[in-house]
């Protein structure tokens, strides 16, 4: 094992004057907790041999302790100077290892807690990754799946015979193993992965969108997950609705389409303005077409999928889809390759273009490529009236950064009511 960790620990302890606990070390370096403990011990020995500036350590001792006739299992953090004394008082020692290393002598064990708290906070989602016990049953269930499970008794609404579209099937069949590409996917990495898989199949329809959505989702999934979950239940209904609408749209827009990309290319294009991978060729024309179509009702299905991930509690991001398409136009080539790599990439590559136009609902939407501004703008715009705004929203949502998403999301809800028809007011909130 290379000795780089010695330098790392040295840096933490001496340069930053921090307390290094085995747990923070394991989370920071990404090693098993036992390895981290051994690393700390090695570092301690190493430094002591070199007679470097005074280092202090705390140890963890566990074992059996007899107190007034009652035996208990005791887990204690002790200072180094108290270690031997403590060990002698225990009747049976089970384990001893280094708990932390720091420069200053700790009088109180309070700071140890704050170090661990911060370390865990930073790695909240995989805090058990480096522990010695893995629980196979502890699997995070995406809120989408949970919602589905809850809504399972409800028959799928609306879809008039759109079983073809993935979205529909996804939303309607609770038992569907894969989370819906569109809405559901947004809520969890898993769904994202699944969505991506499904989107493979359903390329024509969702391809880009779901893919984009998924990839976008994946990226922000980690961070957005807690937030997503929070919004999960609230948005679940919306998602379902959105999906429904999407389904409707989808079905209307195109005849039942197989997952083949070739089928209904044109229609698919409309649906997935983003399918970067697939369609390099028809984009422009399709996008235009789709723009128009999307504004009407077709927008709904697609925006849903892409929007969901970004803004769980916003109405289906159909509009966003259309929006995305437009910006996509500009940065088409870039997108296809980036769709899977992540929203960020797409965003970066997109040319910043500003387009202002009136939605079908009379909302003014300004697109500026994938700047966050456009995000919030579109979000707010389409918050109130679903149809028109989903497009811009979706467009923005996908490429936007997580922060943007979150910001815009937060703002969108807040300002959705206000910003119904006043796109200009939304401008105030964008810059933040």
């Amino acid at each position, binding site marked *: 094992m290379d000795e780089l960790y010695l330098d790392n620990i040295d840096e933490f302890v001496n340069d930053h004057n921090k307390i290094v606990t085995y747990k923070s070390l394991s989370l920071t370096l990404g090693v098993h907790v036992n390895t981290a403990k051994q690393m700390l011990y090695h570092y301690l020995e190493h430094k002591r041999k070199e007679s470097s500036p005074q280092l202090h350590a705390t140890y963890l001792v566990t074992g059996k302790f007899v107190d007034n006739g009652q035996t208990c299992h005791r887990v204690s953090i002790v200072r180094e100077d108290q270690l031997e004394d403590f060990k002698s008082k225990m009747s049976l020692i089970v384990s001893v290892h280094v708990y932390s290393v720091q420069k200053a002598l700790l009088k109180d064990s309070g700071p140890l807690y704050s170090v661990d708290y911060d370390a865990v906070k930073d790695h909240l989602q995989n805090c058990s990754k480096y522990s*010695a016990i893995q629980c196979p049953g502890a699997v995070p269930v995406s809120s989408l799946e949970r919602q589905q499970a809850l809504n399972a008794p409800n028959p799928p609404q609306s879809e008039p015979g759109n079983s073809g579209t993935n979205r529909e099937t996804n939303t309607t069949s609770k038992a569907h193993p894969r989370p819906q590409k569109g809405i559901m996917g947004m809520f969890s990495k898993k769904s994202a992965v699944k969505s991506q898989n499904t989107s493979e199949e359903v390329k024509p329809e969702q391809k880009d969108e779901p893919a984009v959505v998924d990839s976008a989702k994946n990226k922000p999934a980690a961070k957005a997950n807690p937030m997503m979950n929070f919004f999960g239940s609230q948005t679940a209904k919306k998602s379902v609705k959105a999906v429904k609408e999407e389904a409707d749209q989808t079905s209307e827009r195109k005849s039942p389409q197989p997952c083949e990309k070739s089928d209904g290319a044109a229609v698919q294009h409309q649906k997935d303005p983003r399918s970067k991978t697939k369609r390099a060729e028809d984009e422009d024309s399709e996008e235009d077409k789709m723009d128009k179509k999307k504004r009407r009702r077709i927008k709904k299905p697609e925006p849903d999928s892409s929007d969901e991930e970004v803004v769980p509690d916003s109405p289906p991001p159909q509009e966003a889809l259309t929006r995305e398409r437009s910006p996509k136009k500009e940065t088409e080539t870039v997108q296809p390759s980036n769709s899977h790599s992540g929203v960020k990439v797409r965003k970066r590559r997109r040319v910043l273009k500003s387009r202002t136009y009136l939605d079908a609902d009379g909302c003014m939407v300004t697109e500026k490529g994938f700047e966050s501004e456009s995000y919030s703008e579109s979000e707010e715009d389409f918050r109130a009236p679903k149809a028109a705004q989903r497009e811009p929203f979706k467009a923005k949502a996908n490429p936007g950064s997580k922060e943007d998403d979150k910001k815009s999301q937060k703002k969108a809800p807040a300002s959705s009511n206000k910003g119904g028809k006043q796109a200009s007011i939304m401008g105030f909130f964008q810059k933040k």
Partner: protein
Amino acid sequence: MIIQLGSGDLSYDPGFQADEAEASFFVNKNLTGFTILCKQLLQVIFCDACGKTMFSDVSAQKNGPSLLCSPASEEQGPTFERISLPYELYSDRYRVGQRSFSRQYAHIYAARLMQMRPLLAERAQQKWGSNVLIKKLCDLEPGEQCCIVGTLFKRMELQPSILKEISEEHNLLPQPARAKYISEADELILEDELQRIKLEGKFDKDKCVTGSVVAIYGAEKNDGKFTVEDFCMADLPLQTPRPALSSDRFVLLASGLGLGGHNADSMLGLQLLVDMVTGQLGDTGEQSGAAAISRVLLAGNLLSQNTQDKDASTKAKYLTKKTQAGSVEAIRVLDELLLQLVASVPVDVMPGQYDPTNYTLPQQPLHPCMFPLSSAYNTLQLVSNPFEASIDGVRFLGTSGQNVCDIQRYSSMDSHLEILEETLQLRHLAPTAPDTLGCYPFYQKDPFILEECPHVYFSGNAPTFESKLIKGPDGQEVLLVTIPEFSSTQTACLVNLRTLQCEPICFTAFSADKDEENEMNISH
């Protein structure tokens, strides 16, 4: 048989206790290291013979390489798999669906008496002969030896009564809360469906509480009082025998986490608890032992009493507009804590007296919307208080301690364990409900009556840890556990499902004012 170890001899016979073996082993002071090893060896040899397997022993047996060494090259630490046991939650009894509070509480008492009368009649016949006369109060004749079955009512002068307080003719000031409301002048009355009768005689009236259904043997005297000669309770219900398990599995019980309180010291203890259970703490032996912890049960009072905003309703709105309730931040901390736990072990979370759920028993489970991070995992189970479930065939039943505390206030019993045993003997979880303990007005059932005897019966938020194994008249075996309050004692309990024993675990650290010795119950 003589074992020669180091400089001492040790002789043992079968049935020798492990501690006796250690006592007779004389250690050469120079061999301190060897001493420790030998003690461990003895534990390993003897503990199984004694049938006692503590968590420490389990962990010590599987000692891996010491962690006081340099890391081995490229070797990832060992990973143990969390043991997974069949689990069944019996939640229907304590779930209240549509709630209607326009009912009188008399229905609960009627249902209680109706359900327990036949049980008590049977017990009475077992105790006093099958030809004992069991009579209703309305059929009593003076001087006739008989047995009556009914609900006890204890009239206490000091019992707070809202009617007395607001009554103007009494002119009473509101009384301060007391630790105990019993006094010498208390009277016991037995009520059945139609009548009531005062009781006197040789029995300990201070131990009895209102709402317990008992059978009394004696005679009515001429002055209208019933002289008690003997009494009996419903005693333990039947128990399905628990399956014989092959390996040691543990369930961790903890309560009174007290988040949001001002006692920051307990947070480190809590972190140590979580780390130990999730397998981060300790060396490989300890971690493999922790992998045998199949479940964690948090028995109430996850939030501290400080989070209860008493004056929220009385304070002016303009003063409280921007302030957040104390429980909001505390729940967020709890959610993060639970997230660390549920990623590694199934957790059952019971609400307690200070948790954000309804006040009356049975308390409904906490709502998952409060736990956005941890409710994503299906290992998080939000359960009701009281709680009943079967883990690997071992039946658990318990509460967060409100019923025990209430009985403690209205009787002379002080030990939570004693009260726990008493409720088991009465075959009723909370006899004082609804008299002094808030309870939902059930209509035709009383869900607090024990219908099947549990194997582990616990109550949370006790001042200290106590446990006892009791035997019932029909061969039942119950482990009684009082789970100590973690925020003040830093102690949790581990129940071994195979041997039905409970062991406390305490977590300590050091602080400026304490030099060395950490006592079990000290919070630094």
